[in-house]
């Protein structure tokens, strides 16, 4: 042991370094747990193929629009929604590792933000196979490469926003079953939209619900980038819908984090 070794002592690293350290750990875990991302690659491809096979002829007879392009936002939403490190966070909580992290001088918010940064990296990566699938069947972006980048950014933002729900549940309950149950939120949000059938073709109560479902506007904005070109008002509606849901999900997540790390419990 040298004197200099002894003189090394801990200090607060700083917020960005904390976030980077937590995100780095989360990203290292992902290739070691491929089962956590494989479904997010295959499920969108499955639903895209099934819906295309079942409804493409019908869609073309009723309006003659490009159904292959129409379905891409649905497929990508399947890829990025619900993909988070929340199950790993539950494992940390149950195994006591979360306590070990809380014993360090790390800022509490970075314990969650670090995971979210890692999620964004994964979400962007998950957009790639869906886009490749779309290109393979002839889908092209009316807005070009820039539009495609905006498309991926909105998808990643949406995926990030949705992670707030499983993180909130993970931090509040520490239960893997409860985190898995979060996927239930996905069904009404996605199937009560114009994800597979154009809004104009919907009628009755379903049409009303679709109008009030914010995810409808997310899908509309993504679709506009592929099929309609630059439509600022449609894009803004989509982004506003995402931000609205994000305000709820992130409030819940950080409120749950505060409860979990509060040393009064």
């Amino acid at each position, binding site marked *: 042991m040298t004197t200099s070794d002894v003189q090394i*002592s801990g200090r*607060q690293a700083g917020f960005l370094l904390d976030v980077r350290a937590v995100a780095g750990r989360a990203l290292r875990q992902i290739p070691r747990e491929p089962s956590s991302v494989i479904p997010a690659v295959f499920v969108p491809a499955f639903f895209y193929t099934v819906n295309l096979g079942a409804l493409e002829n019908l869609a073309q007879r009723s309006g003659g629009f490009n159904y292959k392009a129409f379905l891409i936002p649905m497929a990508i939403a399947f890829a990025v929604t619900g993909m988070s490190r929340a199950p790993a966070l539950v494992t940390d909580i149950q195994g*006591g590792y979360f306590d070990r992290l809380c*014993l360090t001088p790390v800022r509490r918010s970075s314990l969650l933000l670090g995971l979210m940064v890692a999620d964004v990296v994964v979400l962007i990566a998950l957009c790639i196979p869906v886009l490749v699938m779309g290109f393979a069947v002839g889908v092209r972006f009316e807005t070009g490469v820039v539009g495609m980048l905006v498309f991926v950014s909105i998808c990643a933002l949406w995926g990030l926003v949705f992670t707030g729900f499983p993180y909130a549940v993970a931090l509040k309950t520490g239960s893997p079953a409860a985190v898995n149950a979060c996927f239930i939120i996905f069904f009404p949000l996605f199937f009560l939209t114009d994800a597979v059938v154009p809004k104009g073709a919907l009628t009755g109560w379903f049409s009303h619900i679709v109008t009030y479902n914010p995810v409808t506007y997310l899908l509309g904005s993504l679709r506009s980038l592929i099929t309609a070109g630059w439509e600022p008002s449609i894009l803004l509606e989509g982004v506003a819908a995402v931000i609205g849901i994000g305000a709820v999900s992130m409030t819940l997540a950080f409120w749950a984090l505060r409860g979990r790390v509060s040393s009064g419990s």
Partner: protein
Amino acid sequence: MAAAQADSAAKEAAVLTSGLVRRYGPVTAVDGIDLAVRRGEIYGFLGPNGAGKSSVVRVLCTLLRPSEGRVCVAGFNVVEEPKEVRVRIGVALQEAALDDGQTGRELLALQGRLYGLDRSQIRARLNQVLALVDIGAAIDRRIGTYSGGMKRRLDLAAALVHNPQVLFLDEPTTGLDPISRASVWAEIRRLNVELGMTIFLTTQYLDEADALADRVGIIAKGRLVAEGPPDALKRSMGQDLIVAEVRGDDPTALTKLADLTGIDAVTQEGDQIIVSTSDGAAWLSPVALTLGTTSLAVCSLTLRTPTLDDVFMELTGSHMEEKVIR
């Protein structure tokens, strides 16, 4: 003036608690504990399961907020300045809190980054703590493949990466085999002697506290019932104990033994009669002869010095070791 003195005492002590209370709803787990652990000391915090040891440690480590009382660690108040406390303490909790998916090296490096160490500092500290805890080549294997003893040692290394001033070890040898246990004991001694590190050690093993601690605090039902160097606590019981294992029932036996001159105290616990005396060797024969005059059958007669379990028995009315399953 009194407040200034209290502040000065808090700065000088490694751990200082005053009237520490911790409640969980209606249950009071820690009931008014006053502790003063000096810097550079190994303090053994002893008590059976459920006595409140872990609650005290979690408060000292900033994981729990005290319900009442003032608590300072490494000179900082755990409620008002928790980050200052966290920078200065290392903690190995009761269950080794590790991430099975990382390698040992990754876990220690992450720990170093969270304590603000740069790359070269992390490398230097890893070399140092790995030499200390003897994990060998397994450091580059996933933690999920480690044995229980290796996990404990890695947990200890993680607690040491940032060179803490005060090290909290919550039952560090529970569940370890005798060899791993001896190795952890040696590491604790070395940290204290070589680095002057203050070590706050909770344990339910009396021999562990006896062997390692400069001073011992005994906690029962959330209260500190005794405190002092192990030898002093044992001496407070008398010099020697003569223990007779007996069968049968004779109410006169205790009276006859107590009437012997030179006998300090006589107690019975189940089948054991315990005679406390200042000179056990001299009084062994008279005790045997006296028992021979009763209707009791004497199975064995042992002369021994008092243990911390005897201290615990004296203070709480029950044995601690009976509650511990190794």
